[in-house]
């Protein structure tokens, strides 16, 4: 089926397996600042299926968190605004429904976990009460039942003596335990989609392993979809089904996790993989590096946003924006003019590329 697809790309390809929970199409979110308009997310489309983990990867400022906040409806007006696109949950456009209806979905059907659990929890309320409050707000249950459910949830995410600990305040918990509380709160209403924004970045590596395990456990138990936002390609390799790479507000590549790591097509993805320190490969004296820094989103490069840092950039890269295109293999898209070229990769001299480009064009 994929082979016959027309060159004009269906917005959500590659499709998630299973039924689609969330579809984001051509999302554009901007922020007005004193210096001008920041195009934080600039035309991003993707879909998430039930029971899958979609990872959004990229460096700071690439728009991954703004994408998540846009889905949650947490973009602060008047500075921030979604200027176009649609966000459909089960076919219903979240940008068009009444705020009350949206509020009923947020936290209930779509929940979110933040990077820093200490600022996300209320310091003056017991953690059990904070979880129970959310349950009472969305469900017609008596307080005692909500509290019992909160205790059960704390037990589920691996907090010892949950009944007792539910009566503690956030500052009584360590970073890892707080993140467990956040997970308990997020899954308290059995959401269909969980957005986890850098859930383990602030944690030590041994605790990170625990938290990722808890996340995957609850996912398997409840079959929810997870959108995992992270900059850590190691974490992604361990938990994601599909990966979407973002750069400067744009989506540059998307594929299933094995394809993306095994056969990355966008030079930025290579660069990220090449500059990641890893313990499983022979150590090199110099890491591959991407020169420069990500561009300012006030005035992003006009055509390919990665062109100024790309070792393989040609004239066309500075003139024409490369649309997301399907790569030879199924379920793999990349936004690069040269995706169709085979076996040219990091380390290949630019002159070689020029020659190959001439052959193609």
């Amino acid at each position: 089926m994929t082979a016959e697809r027309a060159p004009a790309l269906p917005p959500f390809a590659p499709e998630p397996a299973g039924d689609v929970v969330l579809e984001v199409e051509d999302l554009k979110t901007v922020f007005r600042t004193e210096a001008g308009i920041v195009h934080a997310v600039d035309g991003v489309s993707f879909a998430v299926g039930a029971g899958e983990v979609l990872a959004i990867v990229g460096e700071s400022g690439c728009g991954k968190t703004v994408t998540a906040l846009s889905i949650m409806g947490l973009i602060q007006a008047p500075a921030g605004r979604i200027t176009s696109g649609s966000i459909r949950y089960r076919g219903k456009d979240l940008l068009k429904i009444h705020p009350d209806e949206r509020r009923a979905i947020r936290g209930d059907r779509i929940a979110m976990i933040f990077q820093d659990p200490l600022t996300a929890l209320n310091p003056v309320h017991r953690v059990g009460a904070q979880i129970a409050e959310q349950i009472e707000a969305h469900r017609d249950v008596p307080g005692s039942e909500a509290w019992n459910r909160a205790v059960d949830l704390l037990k589920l995410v691996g907090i010892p003596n949950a009944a007792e600990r539910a009566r503690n305040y956030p500052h009584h918990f360590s970073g890892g335990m707080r993140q467990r509380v956040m997970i308990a709160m997020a899954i308290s209403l059995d959401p269909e989609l969980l957005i986890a924004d850098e859930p383990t970045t602030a944690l030590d590596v041994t605790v990170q392993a625990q938290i990722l395990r808890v996340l995957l456990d609850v996912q398997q138990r409840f079959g929810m979809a997870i959108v995992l936002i992270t900059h850590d390609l190691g974490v992604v390799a361990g938990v994601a089904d599909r990966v979407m790479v973002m750069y400067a507000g744009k989506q540059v590549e998307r594929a299933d996790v094995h394809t993306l790591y095994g056969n990355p097509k966008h030079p930025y993805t290579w660069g990220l993989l090449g500059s990641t320190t890893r313990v499983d490969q022979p150590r090199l004296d110099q890491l591959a590096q991407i020169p420069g820094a990500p561009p300012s989103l006030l005035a992003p490069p006009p055509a390919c946003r990665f062109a100024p840092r790309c070792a393989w950039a040609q004239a066309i890269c500075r003139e024409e924006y490369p649309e997301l295109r399907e790569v030879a293999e199924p379920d793999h898209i990349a936004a690069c003019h040269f995706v169709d070229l085979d076996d040219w990769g990091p380390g290949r001299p630019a002159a070689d590329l020029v020659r190959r480009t001439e052959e193609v064009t």
Partner: protein
Amino acid sequence: MSVATQREQVDPRATRELVRATDLVKHFPITLGVVVRRQVAAVHAVDGVSFSIRKGETLGLVGESGSGKSTTARLVLRLLEPTSGRVELEGQDITAASGAKLRQARQEMQMIFQDPYASLDPRMTVRDIVGEPLVVWGRWRKGGAAQVAELLERVGLNPDHANRFPHEFSGGQRQRIGIARALALRPKLIVCDEPVSALDVSVRAQILNLLANLQRDFDLTYLFISHDLSVVRQVADRVAVMYLGKVMEVGTREELYRQPLHPYTQALVSAVPIPDPTLERQRKRIVLGGEIPSPTDPPSGCRFRTRCFKAQQICAEQEPELADRGHGHPAACHFAEPLELIP
């Protein structure tokens, strides 16, 4: 490649030590009372740490937050006074040094900080920041401006930007400014305290490469602190693993990653994410229960025993010494045994 290999081939006894720390202890008192202050407890931040760093070498110091890495570094620099123990720089005891002797030692030791935003004064220009050590040590008059320009160029910044302010630079560029400042006095030792933890992956690689090149060109010795084992493997020749104020294991990079002996090191190595989906999903993993205990009241015997999967009665009663138990490098565990964790 060649630089690192040569360095490893040199007989360790023949190379000279730059830094030696012996039995360093730092307890921070916890006091109660306003008029009559009394000490009720102490945070055992560093509790008997010994190591040495040879000239031109990088010693990596790894461990979770609260393990005492940064306190150890500050003791080495004498930014903190140790409760007991000593630090020697090129054979000279600097623990008790004061006056001219201490000032001399301070010129030889510099530091690069984690947060490139907090570690630069926002109201100073880059020229003033990088030149400040020269001014402080009375070396500015001898061509300070030219030296600053050269330093900026050396760390990959445009010398023409010397009169700009830190906010005009990106995170990676700011870290370069911090590195230029640390280099200004041509120190022998640079303590790098999580220098790339706040940086994005692509910029991180730039800074790690820069640090490696500078080490070669300026014959620098690094004490490199990080919680990220994959970063430490990239930069360090030898690695010391800390847990709750103690060194648990010391070894060369190869020994520590290929054949970790201590259960804590093994857990750390097995928890480093590997950016390869197939490997990452198949590998042997040791997931530790719980979190690092409070350093106010560390566990008896072995400090790691409360989270250890090998713990026995003896671990609670007798503290294991940091010693080589016939495996080629020292580990502080009664049941030290090599375990291969990286495929």
